[in-house]
């Protein structure tokens, strides 16, 4: 245990004293997570609404595709995009590989299935009569979508939180496409790989602690959202 405490004692000051390298990685990670989640919400929520309320051909296929892509491994997203974007591949002329921009794009793509599938699922879970009634009363498409979103807001926000968690902590696509470049496009997760590789265990541990805290904050936000009257209620409803 001695070794573990030793590293922990070295790691904690890095956080409390705001090690500049750590602070800049945290800053970039938050920027990536927030922008990717925002983009995924702006693109994904309307698609989710259309999948749940629309009546067009191919809706069911798209719905299944959205669910399946929830399970898409980030490492595959990374390698397939790398193959399409690197060197003289068709996307090579975009010069995205090993840039900051590609990190934003990769995390947006990974976050997107959560906003699409969970929005659709939340809307499908609404009482069946509700939207029919609104239609009868003459609500237009936009009014209907706004009503559905307002009624299903908890499920929709849960999807956004799940997207944020993915954008914060997934590492594979970021490392593959961004190249995990020190001081340039490292996120917390990919910087961990870098530090462990170099044997800098205290830094890696400091990042692990920061990541755990961030994920815990997100989970508490989710818990409060679903059960605003506090945790006690949550325990009860879990059964």
């Amino acid at each position: 245990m001695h070794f573990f405490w030793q590293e922990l004692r070295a790691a904690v000051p890095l956080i409390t004293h705001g090690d500049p390298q750590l602070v800049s990685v945290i800053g970039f990670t938050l920027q990536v997570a927030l922008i990717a989640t925002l983009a995924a919400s702006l693109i994904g929520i309307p698609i989710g609404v259309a999948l749940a309320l629309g009546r067009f051909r191919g809706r069911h296929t798209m719905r299944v595709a959205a669910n399946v892509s929830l399970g898409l491994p980030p490492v595959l997203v990374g390698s397939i995009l790398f193959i399409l974007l690197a060197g003289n591949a068709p996307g090579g002329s975009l010069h995205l590989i090993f840039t900051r921009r590609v990190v934003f794009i990769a995390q947006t793509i990974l976050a997107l299935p959560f906003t699409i599938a969970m929005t659709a699922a939340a809307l499908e879970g609404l009482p069946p009569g509700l939207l029919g009634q609104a239609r009868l009363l003459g609500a237009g498409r936009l009014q209907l979508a706004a009503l559905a979103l307002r009624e299903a807001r908890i499920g929709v926000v849960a999807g956004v939180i799940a997207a944020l968690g993915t954008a914060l902590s997934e590492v594979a696509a970021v490392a593959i496409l961004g190249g995990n470049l020190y001081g340039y496009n490292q996120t917390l997760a990919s910087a961990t790989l870098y530090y462990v590789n170099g044997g800098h265990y205290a830094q890696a541990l400091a990042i692990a602690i920061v990541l755990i805290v961030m994920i815990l904050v997100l989970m508490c936000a989710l818990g409060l959202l679903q059960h605003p009257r506090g945790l006690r209620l949550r325990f009860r409803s879990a059964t």
Partner: protein
Amino acid sequence: MHAVWEQLRAGISLIFDGNELILSLTWTTIRVAFVSTAIALVIGLPIGVAIGIGRFRGRRALQLLANASLALPPVVVGVLALLLMVPGSVFGSLRIEFTLTAVYIVQAILALPYIVAFTPAAIQALPPGLLAQARALGAGRGQVSVLAVREARIGIMAAVIAAMAATVAEVGAVVIAGGNIVGSDQTLASGLLDSFLLTAGNPQLIAITIMLVLLLVILLGTLTFLQQRSGGIQLRFRTAA
């Protein structure tokens, strides 16, 4: 698009020629998938059943913990596990850091929450009278557990499927605790993060990507097939409602 087709052809021919690297990565990945999922199942199923049918204090807290640990980032698991394994640390004398054993262990840790969190959910979704009736008819704890597992097998299989998907495709913990060493503990997924393989137009990169997709589809497809055959999809929808 021409360049991609060219690469794709080169990648596929690597697979058909039985390229040594691709074969060894695939074999390591299969071993990790089965060993880690088995470890997670052996440890997780009893815990999951206990949470699902038990009536002890702290049961809900345990369930909450299991649900929360589903969100644990693999890199965090990797760092914590590695720090416990390096020489001079708690398990340092075992010398398992940067070995296949370490990979088995971290992937089992990542797979565990799926089993522990989904098993109680599957058991609690059973018709409420079923287990109570068995108890009333005099079934002991062991018998009730066996009955619960048998009746909730479809949900438990779903947990196994999710667990195995994680052991095959998650890469953060493998790279950190295993060190991503070629020929020793590199898997298909972690191979994609290897800077020697990760170069533009490398046919090996394409071959690994294809093999990873194939392996995921075959493993998860087979398990899903077994799941559906074992209970019928209808029963599942009924109990989930």
